[in-house]
């Protein structure tokens, strides 16, 4: 410890110590009186070495020299820094987003001890609980110091019926998360409160014009009066991403929503200090078993309660891995392309520094020392690139936040994780683009073509993968827009009546009335129902392995008119009929995989008999070609959660108000939501459009980088062989011969790069299969188009500098040097 202190003191007083040592040696020399004495300078350096700071001097030298060198060629420096910044910036933006969602704790009190629970049984999995269960845990758990529950609902505010998002939370929600009020107060866990609500900051601003005297005012929610007690502060995030418009106590949910049974609440717990999550999980599992003895209906047999860290905006789920993988791969490919291009630029620059290096070697510079010097230049470039990339990534993320209207507490400013990420990417990039050229230049082997060819190949491969992926996405988007997804969506309206609290019999009566009223409306052609409406936000998916192929089985409960309403043709067998409890209709592709050479009708599919085969219709995810459909007749008990589907003969828009008011007129307490399948579809296509646009931009950037690299390298090849070209022209070589001399050496690496790129794209696009709207991930048109575009750009990039070879004047070339 004190040794470190002495070392530091030496560092701080380096000049003085050095002077003293010099004086001491001088004295020693005098005392020796003319007898031989070593080289004082060398003696001094050797003595100084003992303090272990020599590297700082060398580093300082290298840095100063590197800065001077880079300032001498600003054009190169700016190009290099921009290239790197682009490569690093793309990755900083994606990592920054990942960091915001999954790594940075929410701005709540002690986020590290929060756990988010879900429930699991051998046959079941859910992320929501009956409220009674959460309340039981809150009362009896010893390992959790607090249990919080929340459930979301849509409420109608005022008389005009505008819908808002409400979160019904346990009263300890705010105090447990350390929230403060901007105005008034928040929910108080210690007192029993009537119907009171807390507004969110954005909602207070948008709906109440930031009224400072809002506390104490009355509002009407679902026609029920409620008192506003306060506004939560601007930076209160709650748990999870969706900041609601207002919060109310969970005990009040039945008051606002009559018939609400509190069956689906999210649950969080706060772990007591020093305990691990598994202890709490085990305790809750045994508590659940105890509760099951009192309440066997709500608690599953062998229920376990796995947890995840709860203090984050979102948690990583296994199904997200492919998305992460592809985003990371695309970002790293861009960086790889930038590094390869920069590497070849550095090599080309090494040629012009040949003399300088030769002089430095001849006056005694070691190769390792020279390499270190050259690599320091790369490090300086990488540092500048990281800083610029960090700024670019922040700007991109900031833009995204503004564009998507994100809550204010989601702050995209780079924290230590993002900064460390950018710096380590810069370091990795410096090693990638800097080591090989430094090695070659220091050994004065810049004319060796191998490294150069490898770099060209890498650039071609990386940009080729990006272009092919972009090509696939463009094809998929085009396919999605120009073909039908297998069902009618242009003329269909979905009505979500949300019959909360209805019994199946009441629901049946509601639907009968609705159907009777709507069937008289001119323009309505067909009416049916489904539990999972097409293009909606509800779905039931089972992953199954059929004949070695992984498929996603989407199951749906429908009424017999469904196929007619959605215009899905029945290919074999018959439709579902009332009373069909053990019957199932499967989609064509499922039938083909499951019973390849047999008649599917009459086969059994998980205990049900297949009565019919319907054409393929990707109802929920039109983008997923691995999806197959299974239809059951909706049983009576599912009726309250059914969605009505109405097909019209003409345009749908004029009928929307009438349909909405009809659905509401049957029960004024309901707030039915009306959706146009058309707009759901275009929303989905829009999202695919953004992804395509992003991939396209990345692909073009990579191509541009590769072209820049090619221009540089061919220009170098021409200047290097000017003399040879001159001789050949003097001997009668034609322009084509000259071009082939210059360009021949690049044919092999470009072709190799293309092949590697195609292979890489084939592997990577495997992950994209589910997003391509039925286009194969090996779609030849996308591959050929991408390769064609790339080859054309590469040829242009090569010919531009190669033309110079044709203008070589043989006489000048021969006299040169």
């Amino acid at each position, binding site marked *: 410890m004190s040794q470190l202190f002495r070392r530091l003191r030496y560092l701080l007083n380096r000049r003085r110590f050095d002077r003293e040592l010099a*004086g*001491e040696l001088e004295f*020693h020399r005098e005392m020796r009186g003319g007898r031989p004495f070593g080289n004082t300078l060398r003696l001094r350096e050797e*003595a100084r070495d*003992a303090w272990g700071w020599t590297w700082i001097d060398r580093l300082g030298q290298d840095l100063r020299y590197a800065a001077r060198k880079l300032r001498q060629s600003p054009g190169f420096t700016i190009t290099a820094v921009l290239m790197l910044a682009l490569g690093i910036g793309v990755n900083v933006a994606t990592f920054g987003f990942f960091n915001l969602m999954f790594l940075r704790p929410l701005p709540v009190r002690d986020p590290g001890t929060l756990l988010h629970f879900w429930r699991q049984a051998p046959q079941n999995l859910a992320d929501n609980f009956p409220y009674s269960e959460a309340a039981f845990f809150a009362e009896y758990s010893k390992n959790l110091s607090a249990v919080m529950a929340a459930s979301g609902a849509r409420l109608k505010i005022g008389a005009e019926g505008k819908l808002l998002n409400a979160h019904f939370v346990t009263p300890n929600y705010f105090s447990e998360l350390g929230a403060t009020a901007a105005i008034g107060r928040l929910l108080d866990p210690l007192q029993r409160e009537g119907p009171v609500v807390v507004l969110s900051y954005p909602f207070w601003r948008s709906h109440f014009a930031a009224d400072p005297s809002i506390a104490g005012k009355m509002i009407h929610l679902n026609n029920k009066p409620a008192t506003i007690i306060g506004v939560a502060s601007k930076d209160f995030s709650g748990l999870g991403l969706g900041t609601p418009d207002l919060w109310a106590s969970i005990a009040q949910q039945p008051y606002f929503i009559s018939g609400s049974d509190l069956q689906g609440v999210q649950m969080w717990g706060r772990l007591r200090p020093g305990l691990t999550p598994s202890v709490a999980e085990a305790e809750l599992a045994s508590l659940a078993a105890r509760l099951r003895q009192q309440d066997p209906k709500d608690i599953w047999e062998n229920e376990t309660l796995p947890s995840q860290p709860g203090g984050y905006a979102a948690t990583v789920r296994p199904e997200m891995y492919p998305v992460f993988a592809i985003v990371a791969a695309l970002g790293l490919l861009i960086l790889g392309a930038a590094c390869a291009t920069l590497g070849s630029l550095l090599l080309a620059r090494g040629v012009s520094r040949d003399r300088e290096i030769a002089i430095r070697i001849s006056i005694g510079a070691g190769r390792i020392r020279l390499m270190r010097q050259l690599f320091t230049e790369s490090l300086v470039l990488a540092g500048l690139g990281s800083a610029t990339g960090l700024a670019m990534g922040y700007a991109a993320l900031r833009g995204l936040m503004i564009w998507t209207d994100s809550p204010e507490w989601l702050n995209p400013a780079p924290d230590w994780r993002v900064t460390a990420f950018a710096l380590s990417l810069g370091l990795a990039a410096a090693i990638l683009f800097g080591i090989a050229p430094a090695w070659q230049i220091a050994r004065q082997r810049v004319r060796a073509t191998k490294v150069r060819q490898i770099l060209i190949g890498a650039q071609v491969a990386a940009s080729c993968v990006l272009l092919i992926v972009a090509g696939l996405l463009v094809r998929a988007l085009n396919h999605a827009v120009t073909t039908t997804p297998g069902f009618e969506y242009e003329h269909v309206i979905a009505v979500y009546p949300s019959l909360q609290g209805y019994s199946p019999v009441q629901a049946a009566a509601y639907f009968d009335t609705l159907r009777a009223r709507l069937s008289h409306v001119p323009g309505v052609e067909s009416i049916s129902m489904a539990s999972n409406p097409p293009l909606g936000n509800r779905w039931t998916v089972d992953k199954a392995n059929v004949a070695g192929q992984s498929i996603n089985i989407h199951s749906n409960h429908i009424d017999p008119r469904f196929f007619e309403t959605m215009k899905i043709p029945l290919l074999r067998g018959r439709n579902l009929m009332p009373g069909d409890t053990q019957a199932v209709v499967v989609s064509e592709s499922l039938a083909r995989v499951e019973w390849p050479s047999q008649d599917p009708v009459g086969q059994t599919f998980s205990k049900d008999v297949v009565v019919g085969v319907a054409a393929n219709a990707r109802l929920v995810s039109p983008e997923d070609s691995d999806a197959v459909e299974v239809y059951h007749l909706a049983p009576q008990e599912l009726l309250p959660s059914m969605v009505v589907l109405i097909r019209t003969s003409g345009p749908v828009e004029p009928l929307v108000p009438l349909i909405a008011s009809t659905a509401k007129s049957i029960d004024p307490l309901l707030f039915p939501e009306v959706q146009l399948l058309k707009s759901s579809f275009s929303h989905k296509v829009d999202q695919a459009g953004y992804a395509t646009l992003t991939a396209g931009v990345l692909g073009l950037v990579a191509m541009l980088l590769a072209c820049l690299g090619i221009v540089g390298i061919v220009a170098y090849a021409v200047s290097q062989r000017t003399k040879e070209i001159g001789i050949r022209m003097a001997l009668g070589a034609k322009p084509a011969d000259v071009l082939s001399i210059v360009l021949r050496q690049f044919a092999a690496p470009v072709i190799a790069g293309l092949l590697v790129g195609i292979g890489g794209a084939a592997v990577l696009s495997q992950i994209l299969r589910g997003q391509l709207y039925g286009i194969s991930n090996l779609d030849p048109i996308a591959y050929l188009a991408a390769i064609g575009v790339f080859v054309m750009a590469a040829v242009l990039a090569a010919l531009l500098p190669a033309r110079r070879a044709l203008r070589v004047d043989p006489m000048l070339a021969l006299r040169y040097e």
Partner: protein
Amino acid sequence: MPKNEMPSGALVLLILRVLRSGALHGYAIAQRIHVLSSEVLHVEEGSLYPALQRILLKGWVSAEWGISETNRKVRFYRLTPDGLKQLEAELSGYDRVNEAIQSVLRTA
């Protein structure tokens, strides 16, 4: 006069030992070792000064300004308590090893 170089570990031991009787400057340390070894051991300045820096870094000696016999301002090295401890430890270690070597040389 043959020059007898010594390993740097032994040099440190000798420097510490000659400093036990009082502070000395670099040249005097070299002289003292030379004289006390009956002019057998010759301390090169190329190893003396790096060794002194290492000892300074370890904290076994401290440096202070003094006036030399030729009336020049020069750095004197003084043994610190840590240095004394180190010297004793090294001496006893050295004795043990020395005895062991001697006994092998005698009996083998």
